[in-house]
């Protein structure tokens, strides 16, 4: 079930959500088998920032009903480390590479975009404007004016496809998506995690080292579906839909809601090969004959 997305010809519509699959670490665990059975039709790398980041203090995870809350804090080697250590390895993956970047200012995002714009190994860029774990992540993605200004700065810096990853923690997500489209985004992706919190059963204080974190997994699937549909109606650019996808059926729902691609995130934690399984199941599913809600 090949699909075209921002000029990329992909084998199937299932990719990974940024930050939920480290292909370099996975190769250490699974060896060459990972490349032979690579589960995604494009690979989205974990967020890269200008400077290296250690990430948030542990504990970083809390299991919820049908999901989890994470407060990882975007640990990464920084731009220089990524270019020298990670990019050569990721360029060997059997699928196109989409690099996810985040800056703490428009200028920082611009620097990152420019640096990757020159790299032939990179097929597209995804702008993380939505990570709820980092203070400034909220700002750029929650407001249409901020998105307009950000894209106004970075769009002229690259001819590579720009995907804006939207936060669900905004009052009017379709309005942010429209602003991104109007300012030149080639696609939007959603949802990122929903802000959540857990209480330490022993101390009564927030469990996560950073206080709050992002909720993901099947627990957020219905929210994701509604937001993907609302955004798909609002924009003409392609939409990457994600949130709690576990089965082909969940992926089909997002496609029916208007998504062009579907990303698997948390389910990869439970089964590293989940993306490939979802794509396989999806290929054998047929859209329902009757639109949802009609008849019966």
């Amino acid at each position: 079930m090949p699909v075209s997305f921002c000029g990329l010809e992909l084998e199937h519509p299932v990719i990974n959500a940024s930050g939920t699959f480290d292909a370099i670490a996975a190769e250490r665990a699974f060896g060459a088998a990972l490349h032979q059975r690579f589960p995604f039709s494009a690979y989205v790398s974990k967020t890269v920032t200008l400077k290296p980041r250690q990430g948030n203090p542990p504990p970083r995870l809390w299991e919820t009903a049908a999901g989890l809350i994470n407060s990882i804090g975007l640990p990464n080697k920084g731009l220089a480390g990524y270019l020298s250590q990670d990019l050569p390895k990721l360029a060997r993956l059997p699928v196109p590479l989409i690099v996810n970047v985040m800056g703490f200012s428009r200028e920082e995002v611009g620097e990152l975009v420019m640096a990757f714009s020159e790299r032939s190994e990179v097929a597209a860029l995804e702008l993380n404007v939505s990570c709820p774990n980092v203070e400034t992540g909220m700002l750029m993605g929650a407001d249409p004016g901020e998105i307009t200004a950000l894209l106004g700065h970075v769009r002229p810096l690259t001819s590579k496809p720009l995907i804006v990853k939207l936060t669900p923690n905004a009052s009017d997500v379709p309005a942010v998506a429209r602003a991104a489209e109007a300012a030149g985004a080639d696609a939007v992706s959603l949802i990122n995690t929903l802000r959540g919190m857990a209480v330490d059963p022993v101390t009564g204080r927030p469990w996560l080292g950073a206080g709050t974190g992002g909720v993901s997994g099947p627990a957020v699937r219905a929210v994701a579906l509604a937001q993907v549909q609302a955004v798909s109606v609002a924009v003409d650019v392609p939409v990457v839909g994600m949130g709690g996808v576990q089965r082909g059926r969940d992926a089909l729902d997002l496609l029916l809601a208007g998504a062009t691609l579907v990303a698997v995130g948390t389910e990869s934690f439970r089964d590293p090969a989940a993306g490939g399984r979802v794509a396989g199941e999806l290929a054998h599913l047929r859209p329902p004959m009757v639109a949802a809600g009609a008849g019966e």
Partner: protein
Amino acid sequence: MNSRVLAPFGRRATRITRRDTHGPYVVLSCHDPAGPLPAAGQFYMLAARERWGGGDGERPFLPRAFSVLDAEPHPQGVHLRFLFDDVGPGTHRLCELEVGEELLLVGPLGNGFAPPRDGRRPLLVGGGVGIAPLVIWQRALNFEATALLGFRDRAHAPGASLLPRAAVATDDGSVGHAGLVTELLEAELDRDGDAEVYACGPPAMLEAVRVMCAQRELPGQLALESGMACGFGACFGCVVPTRDGYVRLCVDGPVLEAAVLEAVGLEAVASCR
């Protein structure tokens, strides 16, 4: 330096072939037709095929990380054994599994133990359910290593039967030495200090072992535990602080050199049980 056997890619199904109890501990044996023989100290991410979810707080959802207790070759694949203590919704469900039911797993994962350096004698130190990786390591060492095990009380002490000829300490003094297993370790090191220490157990025990290794300038290998969503480096949830910053326990551990740790953290692991 540590040993690592690669895992087949993806989650696979195994079947429970045997269920034993040792006091409150449950040992499940399963037949893994597609799996390799793991290295001692490696771990697997485990989940029950049926009813994984719907327990306390509608959990579990994520798989749970367990060091392999023991492994044997089989004409097809391997036989694996795992040790469980029912302390949370995930371990509770795993403890319920019966012969014939399916256990889903990913593994073997992580770094295992490395052989002792410079002809040192291996000393195994375990606490509670943390004795698991020492059982397979003891086999790899031809059952020649001295093993020291600590348990809470008489009810938990039957766990010692998994490691033949081990010296036992109990917190309440009901079995073996009355006190901490690290007191047994101290006596052993006083007797013959030319040792390399292998330890797995609760954080406080590991921290005591780490301090003892540092004071005596002895090499130590500690098998640590941390809340973990994936087990293969994807989630970045299981980091522990080291002298070189945070490392992911799943891909850089779970066995770490004692010397790389400034302290064994006391972070609770309640969310991964």
